[in-house]
């Protein structure tokens, strides 16, 4: 792989971390706001940016940011982790996954421990790399643990399609892909919903476009603003949401046009439609949301690791003291949790939000725990 003219691209990123632009947007937000508003950023990547750049320090007190369920590792249900652990323990299996999944606790253990005890578990950066592992290990079963939102799903779909083309009989996928719009709808339809507006995840919309969000915004009369990940992007997203709220408008706006087009990436959507079909999914800490995830479509089911290894019926149990559900739905902040920073730390996580690089608890712990007044550390 080669990345041309990286220097220029880096300058492009610097512009979105520019202090003057940030201050300018912060001033505009302060001028615009007249009452209290609660805005949820859906994506865990945005949560981390907000904490990393300390953006809450420059927002007026009227604006409360709450952190959404957009952390794929966090919402992957415990039974899926247990299945991955079971696969990792099979001597004939090479289990591959993105790095974050390795530390998430299942019912009794996690993948890192399975690896330490001899399981062949490998971290990969791309699902396509897994095909080479499968081709190079014909005597082994190679499974990819596919978690994530619409952003990572196209690469997984491509790998599966390619595996079929290359007749890789020893390749399969443990699918736990979930979708953003049904999750937003689940949050909005909840009785104790207190979210006034949403920052939608820019990367997801780069793939899927913005059209899926229009019916949700209209049904629940909320502003949904597609937002990027750099400080200037996030403040712009907040400003646009605030303008809509103050002007009592609702609908979908795009504050990340340098990456997102209304129709999204058609080629990616096409391959998603070919390899996957929508299905109900269980979200860790939240429960089952109808038509909120992907499973393999006809013609690709033979790559389903759950079927191949007969993993349909596994008993799982959740840790009692983790309030991940309340965190992931924005009902509570990590600092509201009795276990935060004491019995739950990144080294000994009780739940996934403390593990993942996109988890809200990990973001608070890493960037801001000293500022939390009720810290019991």
């Amino acid at each position, binding site marked *: *792989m*080669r*990345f*041309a*003219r*990286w*220097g220029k*691209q*880096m300058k492009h*990123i610097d512009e979105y*971390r*520019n*202090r003057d632009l*940030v*201050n300018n947007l912060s001033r505009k937000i302060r001028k615009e706001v007249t009452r209290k508003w609660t805005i949820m950023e859906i994506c865990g990547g945005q949560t981390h940016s907000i*904490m*990393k*750049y*300390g*953006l809450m*320090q*420059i927002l007026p007190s009227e604006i409360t940011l709450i952190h959404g369920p957009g952390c794929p590792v966090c919402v992957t249900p415990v039974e899926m982790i247990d299945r991955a652990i079971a696969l990792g323990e099979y001597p004939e299996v090479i289990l591959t996954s993105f790095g974050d999944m390795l*530390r998430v606790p299942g019912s009794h253990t996690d993948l890192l421990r399975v690896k330490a005890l001899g399981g062949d578990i490998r971290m990969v*950066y791309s699902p396509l790399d897994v095909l080479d592992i499968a081709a190079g290990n014909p005597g082994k079963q190679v499974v990819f643990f596919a978690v994530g939102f619409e952003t990572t799903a196209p690469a997984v779909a491509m790998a599966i399609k390619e595996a079929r083309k290359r007749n890789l009989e020893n390749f399969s996928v443990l699918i736990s892909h979930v979708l953003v719009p049904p999750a937003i709808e689940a949050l909005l339809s909840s009785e104790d919903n207190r979210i006034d507006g949403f920052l939608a995840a820019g990367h997801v919309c780069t793939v899927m476009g913005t059209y899926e969000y229009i019916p949700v915004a209209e049904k629940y009369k909320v502003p949904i603003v597609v937002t990027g990940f750099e*400080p200037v992007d996030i403040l712009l997203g907040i400003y646009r949401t605030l303008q809509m709220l103050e002007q009592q408008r609702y609908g979908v706006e795009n504050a990340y046009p340098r990456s997102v087009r209304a129709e999204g990436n058609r080629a990616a959507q096409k391959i998603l439609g070919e390899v996957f079909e929508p299905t109900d999914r269980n979200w860790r800490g939240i429960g089952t949301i109808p038509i909120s995830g992907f499973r393999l479509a006809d013609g690709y089911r033979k790559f389903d690791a759950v079927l191949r290894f007969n993993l349909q019926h596994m008993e799982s149990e959740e840790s009692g003291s983790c309030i991940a559900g309340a965190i992931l739905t924005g009902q509570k902040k990590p600092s509201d949790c009795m276990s935060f920073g004491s019995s739950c*730390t*990144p*080294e000994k996580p009780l739940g996934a939000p403390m593990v993942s*690089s996109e988890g809200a608890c990990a973001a608070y*712990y*890493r*960037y*801001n*725990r*000293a*500022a939390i007044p009720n810290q019991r550390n």
Partner: protein
Amino acid sequence: MARTGTYSLQCPIPKSEHEHILMAHGGGGKLTNQLIEKMFYTGLGNEFLMQGHDGAFLPAIKGQLAFTTDSFVVNPIFFPGGDIGDLAINGTVNDLVCCGAKPLYISLAFILEEGFLLEELWKVVQSIGNAALTAGVKIVTGDTKVVEKGKGDRIFINTTGIGQVLPGLNIAPIRCKEGDVVIINGTIGDHGISIMLTREGLALDSPVESDTMPLNGMMQEVFKRQPDIHVLRDPTRGGLASALNEICQSSGTGITLFENVLPVNNGVRGACELMGFDPLYIANEGKILVILPEEHAGEVLAIMRSHDEGRESRIIGRVTATHPGILHLETTIGTTRIIDMISGEQLPRIC
């Protein structure tokens, strides 16, 4: 970067009837002897190593000694800017420097995997010889063990070093005081990212080379001219963030870093954006953090900048009493956040 070019041992591999390491190379018999005489004596020989005893007899050293050990398991063993050989010397030399010592003697132990190419071992040995010459240290004793194929990963190296602590120096984390400044001698994250990019087969237009190099030359001059240094630390595994967090915790003082002056080269920044890493947590192998009273900063910076190893030296932070035990970052946009110790392993087998 560490390639000073002053010394060069570009000899062909000493003749041997074998191409690969065999179990017998570690067996203590003829093959072990051949390896020692043809390769190690040729590549590394000096009056102490050539004594040929079980250990080395060294002259008495006046004053306090510094003593350190480090093992090297880096994968891949050859990477842009260096290899496991010079890394093993520079790492131990720099640990001694951080004790305020003049590095003198180093022991060298290999764990080799059966089947490892002798030609590659020779490359590593030459690199060790060059690094030792550059740093002015002597390899005085060593050991070689061989493990069965599949029980190791080509080559592991342990080095242990002895240095003479320079009189008048008192380097200790506890001496970190409010008002001190934090200096670094150049860009951060180069070593870890160079390894990462090599391992993943990624190529950037701005190439990233490991910064492995010995820092004793530059630091001896600092010690001589301005001994009032409070703390020294080489930010290796865990990067700048972990090194400074350790200092905050053991001294009970706080440190604030200024993001807008942190030196990070474009290749490292690009790779970090791409892979989701933070340069603050990436390993360095030729960097030193110098914490000292602000009034000496100008003088020390001038000395450091007069050496190749420190051309880009600058003040990157300040010691404060306002957040004891905690490392803060003042971000480019003017907000602050804490920088925590790294949790888990960001990049395994980096050194």
